[in-house]
């Protein structure tokens, strides 16, 4: 989750998010290069004493400022497309979970296992409890095994919602009457937080998501308990 003064992307909890962060750094590097060049030209224009009252065109300059940006965009597009297709690869998911957005909570179904369904409501903030995060905690967490490829199917029961976990690089719209599929693998244990990302009414800001990434053995124990 984002702590105070965090201006960047959250630390990744999945390999895809790691690649997204590196791609973001690569694009920022290109943007910095363009910014440095533009600032230099702005400064030199400000201190410049040349005047040309009869300037009508500059064919060569126009050619350069068309071709150079196109070449720069190629350097951005190539890793972007690689990552776009990498995100859509599915590597034999070990389980599929369904997420349904409601006003104003999420419900989860682990259909691969018997009778595992639950709702997840936001826990109201207690001011004197220093171990809870305001507007981010829920009563039931989505428990998932780490190092396992998981498929998630997102839909909604009423209005549009969006299931988001920034540290996994996932944002999947929950549309009524439609199933959107996403997939991920969590590569470290912990709690991963997210919030609904599509305006859905009065309590849109109060329907967070918490994923508990646990060891495979503990996940099996948890699922067994819930299946009983």
């Amino acid at each position, binding site marked *: 989750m984002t702590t105070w003064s965090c201006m960047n992307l959250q630390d*990744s909890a999945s390999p895809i998010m*790691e690649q997204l*962060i*590196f791609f973001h*750094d*690569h694009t*920022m*590097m*290109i943007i*910095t*290069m*363009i*910014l*440095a*060049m533009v600032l*230099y*030209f702005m400064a*030199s224009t400000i201190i*410049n004493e*040349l005047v*040309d009252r009869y300037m009508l065109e*500059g064919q060569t300059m126009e050619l350069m400022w068309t071709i150079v940006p196109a070449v720069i965009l190629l350097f951005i597009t190539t890793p972007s497309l690689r990552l776009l297709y990498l995100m859509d690869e599915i590597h034999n998911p070990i389980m599929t979970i369904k997420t349904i957005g409601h006003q104003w909570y999420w419900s989860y179904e682990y259909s691969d296992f018997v009778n595992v369904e639950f709702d997840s409501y936001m826990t109201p903030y207690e001011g004197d409890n220093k171990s809870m995060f305001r507007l981010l905690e829920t009563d*039931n*967490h989505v*428990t998932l095994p*780490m*190092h396992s490829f998981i498929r998630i199917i997102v839909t909604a029961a009423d209005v549009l919602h969006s299931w988001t976990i920034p540290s996994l690089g996932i944002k999947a719209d929950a549309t009524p009457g439609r199933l959107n599929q996403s997939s991920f693998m969590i*590569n*470290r*244990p*912990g*709690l991963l937080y997210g919030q609904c990302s599509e305006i859905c009414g009065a309590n849109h800001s109060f329907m967070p998501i918490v994923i*508990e990434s*646990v*060891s495979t053995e*503990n*996940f099996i*124990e*948890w699922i067994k308990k819930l299946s009983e």
Partner: protein
Amino acid sequence: MAEKSVQKIPKPQLRGLLASSLKFHLPAAIAVSAVTTVLFKIFWVDRRRARYAEFYKNYDAEKDFERMRKAGVFKSC
């Protein structure tokens, strides 16, 4: 009339002023841009990659999970 000597100044450049200005400023702009990019790459991009590599080099996920479990972080266990 007294003859006065006239000193002629060299004829100033009247054309191609942008081209001659660009002869200096374009390489300078490219140099500034390249230096900024290389510094960004070394101190931001490569540092982040190195931090991630360092974190995952000897990372024991199970041990980290046990530490978190004992701290009472999880509701499932």
